[in-house]
């Protein structure tokens, strides 16, 4: 996985406990930060963009919340959206069940992906072979 991240470092968005949300920023700032920094998108515009993305997940109510006050599912979705806001995002899920110990079914990932698939160029899931089943995957991308 490390080699993959290095090869695609310009537009890879990692979803992993090793890349946590910033705890002194609200959810919307965590997501908006990337475009504010790289594209100099003004604060109001980037906030509107984030609210639109959160709305797709029915999560606008968490926009002002901070990391410690999110449920596991909310935290995962915020990290997923954040990863997708990179231009031509290659979203990389690193053993996602570490973030979702309640282990939702594979449908959860498919639905999450469908909500923002207009932003994402590719999605890669890195997990142990024994965890293959929940993702309902048919291709051979595994590590």
């Amino acid at each position, binding site marked *: 996985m490390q080699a993959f991240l290095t090869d695609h470092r310009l537009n890879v968005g990692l979803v992993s406990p090793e890349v946590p949300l*910033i705890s002194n920023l609200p959810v919307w700032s965590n997501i908006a*930060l990337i475009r504010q*920094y790289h594209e100099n998108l003004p*604060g109001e515009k980037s906030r509107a963009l984030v609210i639109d993305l959160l709305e797709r997940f029915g999560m606008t109510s968490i926009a002002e919340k901070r990391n410690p006050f999110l449920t596991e599912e909310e935290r995962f979705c915020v990290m997923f959206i954040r990863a997708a806001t990179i231009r031509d995002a290659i979203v990389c899920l690193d053993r996602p069940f570490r973030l979702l110990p309640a282990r939702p079914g594979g449908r959860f990932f498919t639905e999450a992906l469908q909500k923002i698939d207009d932003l994402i160029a590719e999605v890669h899931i890195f997990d142990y072979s024994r965890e293959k089943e929940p993702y309902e995957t048919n291709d051979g991308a595994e590590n």
Partner: protein
Amino acid sequence: MRTTSSLLGTLAFAAGVFLSIFDRRTYNSASRTVFIHQFYFTSVQILPLFLSVAAVFGSLINGMAFQVIKNLGLTDYLGRLLMGFVVTELAPFVTVLLLALRSSAAINAEIAVMKVNRELDTLEHFRIDLLHYLFVPRILSGMLSMIFLTSVFALVVLSVGLIVSGLIFGTGVDAYFDTLLNAADIFDIIVLLIKCATFGFFITMIPIGFGLRATRELTSIPVSVLNGMVTVFLAIIIIEVLSSIIRFI
């Protein structure tokens, strides 16, 4: 040996930060937001406490100093005392102590917590430069806050001085301002501004540097804050001594 290496490390970090102030990439929407938030936390939130301290301190210093001046028959030195001591020495010193106690400690703890929580790794993963996004806006805010709050402190103390000098010497408003203007020295004001900016730079840069030295252990946070604050205090003393040497020698 360890102290020398630590000092060199701090100076190298200071040089990197200083150069980044002039880097165009520092000035983006995200960094502006950090700057505005930091300026609010450092300069605006502290105002009620700061104004109270300035008023109490101003009354005390002015009351004592004016009484001594009157008793010694040195009323001609009133303006020099106010501009040369209260404005250029006392105002920045009290301001830097208050800011160091409040904001430097908070910045040190914040960076250390971000290091422990791996949040700095997050920024690096998303190719967000720590210097541009996290450090320079805080340091610029510290520099501007020092200049702003020192000016506020000086204004409050001089306003209190107007009342006190009226009560003790019977000085009118015009005569008071004439005395101040005659005593004002442009060289002193320039040294004051540079001193304030230098104070602001180091009381934010040093806590950031020490926050970065935290390890992944929670127990490293108090150690980092303790070492950072001691170094901030030493830096304040060194800057104060250097500015006095420049002014008086």
